[in-house]
């Protein structure tokens, strides 16, 4: 039998409740990554849900993962690169970073095309205040996205956040340490974020997203390739060989000198690099 016909047949049964239906029409924020959009049942980060992102360490591209979504929410222009600054930002909603582990650096965010005026940063301090602030923001109904960093939480608190996100029609992303994967958490989506180096491209990484829990969807693993992944935070990194070509410098020397220069706090290898670089 044709699956579509079967689908309509089942839909016409009012007594039949299917788990997928509840979430299939849900609104979502596009993640900016095709593979991830396909893997999530809402077709993006689901509005009215909490997404937990579990990771071992910071600085592996975990925030870049959310930049397209944040840009979508605060309404910056994606084309804000060095060639054309965003002139008309059609701001739609608010976004907030609650308790970020480091200082969110304005130039990088503006490079990524995010309207800074619409991105609130809240240094809430401890976990209690972080969860409280996140809940307040979610409930207000004004925010499109709330990103929070939490060390310790519990099922009860995560449920509160999930309910707040549902009532406020907001999407929340909560960063938690990797070891909390074993804890129960009643949120709509849980993803383990790991990173692996790509052997072919020495300065790019591949992000692996293990979606191990998702409402109305199937757990699966999504990889985001370095080509899609905008680890350069909106601006082009001065790629060595290209830079060298531009400056008309001997290509092989500069590539070798720069990409293989191993630096350490020890004195011997570090000394080698500066001399090479200075000669360029």
């Amino acid at each position, binding site marked *: 039998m044709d699956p579509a016909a079967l689908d309509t047949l089942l839909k016409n049964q009012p007594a039949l409740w299917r788990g997928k239906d509840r979430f299939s029409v849900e609104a979502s924020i596009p993640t900016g990554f095709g593979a991830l959009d396909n893997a999530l049942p809402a077709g993006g980060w689901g509005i009215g849900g909490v997404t937990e992102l579990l990771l071992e360490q910071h*600085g592996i591209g975990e*925030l870049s993962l959310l930049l397209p979504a944040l840009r979508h929410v605060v309404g910056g222009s994606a084309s804000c690169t060095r060639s054309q600054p965003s002139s008309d930002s059609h701001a739609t909603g608010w976004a907030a970073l609650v308790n970020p582990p480091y200082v969110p650096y304005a130039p990088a965010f503006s490079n990524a095309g995010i309207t800074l005026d619409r991105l609130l940063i809240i240094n809430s301090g401890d976990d209690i205040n972080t969860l409280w602030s996140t809940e307040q923001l979610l409930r*207000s109904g*004004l925010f499109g996205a709330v990103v929070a960093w939490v060390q310790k939480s519990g099922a009860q608190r995560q449920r509160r956040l999930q309910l707040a996100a549902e009532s*406020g029609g907001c999407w929340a992303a909560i960063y938690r340490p990797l070891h909390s994967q074993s804890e129960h958490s009643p949120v709509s989506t849980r993803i383990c974020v790991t990173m692996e180096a790509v052997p072919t491209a020495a300065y790019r990484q591949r992000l692996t997203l293990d979606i191990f829990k998702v409402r109305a969807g199937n757990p699966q693993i999504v990889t985001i390739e370095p080509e899609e992944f905008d680890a350069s935070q909106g601006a082009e990194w001065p790629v060595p060989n290209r830079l060298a070509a531009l400056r008309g410098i001997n290509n092989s020397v500069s590539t070798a000198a720069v990409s293989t*220069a*191993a630096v350490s706090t020890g004195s011997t290898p570090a000394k080698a690099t500066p001399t090479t670089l200075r000669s360029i």
Partner: protein
Amino acid sequence: MLWLALYFPQLPIDRQLIADEAAGSLTDNIPTGNISTDSNPTSGSLAPASFAIINGATSNGSTGNSATNNSKKKATSKNTKQSSPKGPRRRILACNKQAVANGIRVGMALKSAYALVPDLVVSDYDEACEAAHLEQLTLWALQYSSNVVPEPPDTLLIEIQASLKLFGGINSLLERIGSELRAQHVTVVPAIAPTPAAAMLFTRAGIRKQIGSPQALKTTLASVNVAQLPLDEFTFKGLRQSGIQTLGGLMDIPPAALTRRFGSACTEFLYKLDGRLPDPKTPYKPSDTFLLAVDLPLEAPDTQALIFPLKRLLGSLGGFLKARDLGIRHLDIHLYHHRLKRHSVALKFLDATANMDHLLRVTTERLDTVVLKAPVIALSLESAELAPLEREGRDLFQKSQSQNQSIEQVLDKLVARLGQEAIYTASSEEDHRPEKASASTLFNKRYPSQPWPARPLWLLKEPRVLNEQVTLHTLPERIENGWWDETDVRRDYFIASNTQGSYYWLYRLRHQPDQWWVHGLFA
């Protein structure tokens, strides 16, 4: 003109309720002591059964008066016909329902009252406190009319004709006033009449009628007993001798004869009653700034106990702001302790606000974080900064139903708990020094800056020394700037990754090329 008179027969006792509430930490349904008539709308929902819980006493909150200052009170209190102006006898001026149930009556000597109820709680009548409470109520009433006249010691006159349309008719207005007074636990006797003198007379006489037409006024006035009139002893004597019982009888006397017998003051009063003579009243004018204090009859051990008196004060602030058509931007709450210096809590709002629900939410949130060094004995509210309200036109078709809060309200709540510094938006500055290129502001509208070279999303507050193996990926980006002030920057920046794949923003100082520092993370 239509005047609503509010007579607060139990003002000294109602004031005491702050203490009862505070001690019991009960938020709702605190029984008020009440000796006014049973049909009183404010006393209907109160349950005397729970009353004894509060202080563990069978009767409670009865307010006696000291003989030293009761003569003043007696002159205005119609029921206390005490006849000992200079005697040392202490009498009961007002008492609560529980006390009445135990046989205590107003006017009873204190000794007799103690004989009936040995553990009667007595406190001295304080005229200043009562005046302060009346002023607080006057300020509160300003939200219903611009023409509010306090009639000391215990009556308010409010001109409501002009407010009827705004508040949706007389019944809904009365209901609203009644429920707010009930929330404040204030006993009230309302009366409505076309003239202020008649409204005053009815409310003091306990005639709770809504009299709108002159005809109804005339018939109601005619039935009032002359003993209720605020006349002098000489006139009363004359009336008794003439056998005049009701006001109707008095009004039948031709004016010339009336004046001859009782003097022109009596005639004028009668004419003002039915409106034949104008009776101008000077409306209460709020001062330029708001400062209202309340003494707590019992010490408040924690901030939770301050919420109820705060609600009363905030109600007055609401009336004040309405009358001045302003919003508050900076509110100071002063908490007074015994012997210690006062503790001040400052509440700053992003937008001037006159929304009392919002104010109360923010205030309670803020007070929750306050740790008291000592019990609070008094409390005051002071407006440090007032500002005109910004009104927004409402959409006829609300776009989003869930947006019932404004962003300022949400942020105010966060600021109240986390502090002003905790909330900001980043903005990029025209400075090439990495530390200065990002500033923390709140709603500082800027034009989009020029695009930057590759910059990390995370910046470390303090650069840290690199202590692991990394691989460099870029050529140096030299940043030399700031020689004109103390943060002189001469650095070469690189992008590098460690073995786990975290990407760093590294630099080394030009004059110290061996030392590598981590300044940011490419998250």
